[in-house]
């Protein structure tokens, strides 16, 4: 069902998940709009503002029962999420970030009857993620590693009460989740300087809350979820970089009026190759693709076939690569 709605609402700056879903009995947990996993940007220099613009396309046309792919799929879905992210260096250790989303979803049902399929599209402002991150260990020339921790909330800016022809749409077709969720986040990176190779892990946890939808007796709560990314990145040819990441995600089943929803929740493991390019000192872009390696879903759910993500980042401050009077750290 709609576990992935979670994803929709929350966090990402970089890539995203989506949930789909929707026919009763075949709702999904895969995917939708990205959030938590997008928070892979680390510390921002004090006084600097880094803006990110991300487009994320999640295509979902596989059907799984547990770990087994089924052949009798009856629907397919896709979600396109646009994210605008602002990261501001409040102090040398504290970075504030806000991520806002717009979500467009498409679902085609009745694929088992060729010529009789039906398509439904929804779109709207999605949820937002507001976070504060703290640099516990700051990376320097003499310390090739950093540790950051953070926390925040996913704010329910998106609607969760869209209808179609007078009928309430399932939670996973709504742009928003309607709930305030708590987010915990951490990033650790280590650079092997001799190889100019950086390994990192980004982990996040979302503690959800319930939200009423069409009336007070319709309380829906997405399952809590945990995301873990482990990856490496290395620069190449001056302005290029390439990366390879593994992403693990697990989500509890959704509940409706305190009853567990069938076919929601599960665990997924994806591989994400990508590359980056520095257009200028201030402007960079990243492109990545996400391919499922493993999924173990509760019940029967549509599952992601692939995700494509493109991001552009703009830094307000120009790196100080000019001639500076005095010493480097005391300008």
């Amino acid at each position, binding site marked *: 069902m709609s576990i992935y709605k979670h994803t929709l609402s929350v966090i990402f700056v970089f890539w995203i998940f989506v949930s789909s879903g929707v026919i009763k009995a075949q709702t999904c947990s895969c995917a939708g709009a990205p959030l938590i996993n997008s928070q892979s940007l680390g510390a921002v220099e004090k006084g600097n503002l880094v803006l990110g613009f991300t487009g994320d396309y999640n295509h979902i046309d596989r059907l799984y029962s547990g770990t087994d792919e089924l052949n009798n799929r009856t629907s397919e879905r896709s979600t396109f999420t646009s994210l605008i992210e602002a990261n501001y260096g409040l102090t040398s250790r504290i970075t504030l970030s806000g991520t806002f989303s717009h979500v467009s979803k498409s679902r085609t049902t009745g694929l088992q009857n060729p010529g009789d399929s039906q398509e439904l599209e929804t779109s709207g402002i999605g949820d937002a993620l507001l976070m504060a991150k703290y640099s516990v260990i700051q990376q320097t*020339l*003499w310390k090739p590693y950093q540790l950051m921790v953070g926390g925040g909330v996913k704010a329910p800016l998106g609607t969760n009460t869209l209808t179609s022809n007078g009928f309430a749409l399932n939670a996973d077709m709504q742009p928003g989740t309607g709930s305030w969720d708590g987010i915990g986040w951490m990033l650790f990176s280590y650079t092997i300087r001799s190889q100019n190779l950086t390994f990192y892990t980004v982990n996040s946890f979302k503690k959800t809350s319930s939200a009423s939808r069409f009336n007070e007796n319709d309380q829906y709560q997405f399952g809590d979820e945990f995301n873990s990314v482990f990856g490496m990145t290395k620069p190449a040819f001056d302005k290029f970089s390439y990366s390879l990441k593994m992403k693990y995600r697990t989500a509890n089943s959704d509940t409706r009026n305190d009853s567990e929803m069938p076919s929601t929740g599960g665990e997924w493991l994806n591989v994400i190759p990508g590359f980056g390019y520095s257009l200028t000192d201030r402007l960079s872009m990243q492109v990545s693709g996400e391919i499922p390696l493993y999924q173990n879903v509760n019940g029967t759910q549509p599952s992601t076939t692939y995700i494509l993500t493109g991001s552009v980042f703009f830094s307000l401050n120009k790196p100080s690569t*000019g*001639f500076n*009077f005095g*010493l*480097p750290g*005391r300008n």
Partner: protein
Amino acid sequence: MAQTESYGITWLSLEEAIESAKNDPKKVMLFMEAEWCTLCKKMKKEVFPDSEIQTMINNNFYAVRIDIESNESIIYEDKKWTKKELSKDFGLYATPTFIFLDSDESMIGNKPGYMDREEFMDLLTFVANEEYIESEF
């Protein structure tokens, strides 16, 4: 870090450079580098071997290489440091970084990051001719 390769540039110790500047005034150029610094290696491979660069440095500066991770002792402003301690005290945040001192040991300024041959020559000219007094680089 072994500093056996000179790249056609006369490298001095910091103490030698400061002493020489007192006797025969020239500016002191500190090349702050690290063993793992690929951009430092790139400058040494692609920029320092240029004969005009070599001439410009040798005629106008006392050049000093400082390995920012070295525990080798060094004297600066009458105080004993390791090269690592001095680099940290300088507030270094990038390699390579070029730091320029005047002949009286006073600090002029710095420029972090890789430079190609043309940009590096411009920087050396900018500092050697004291253009920083009236203009920006």
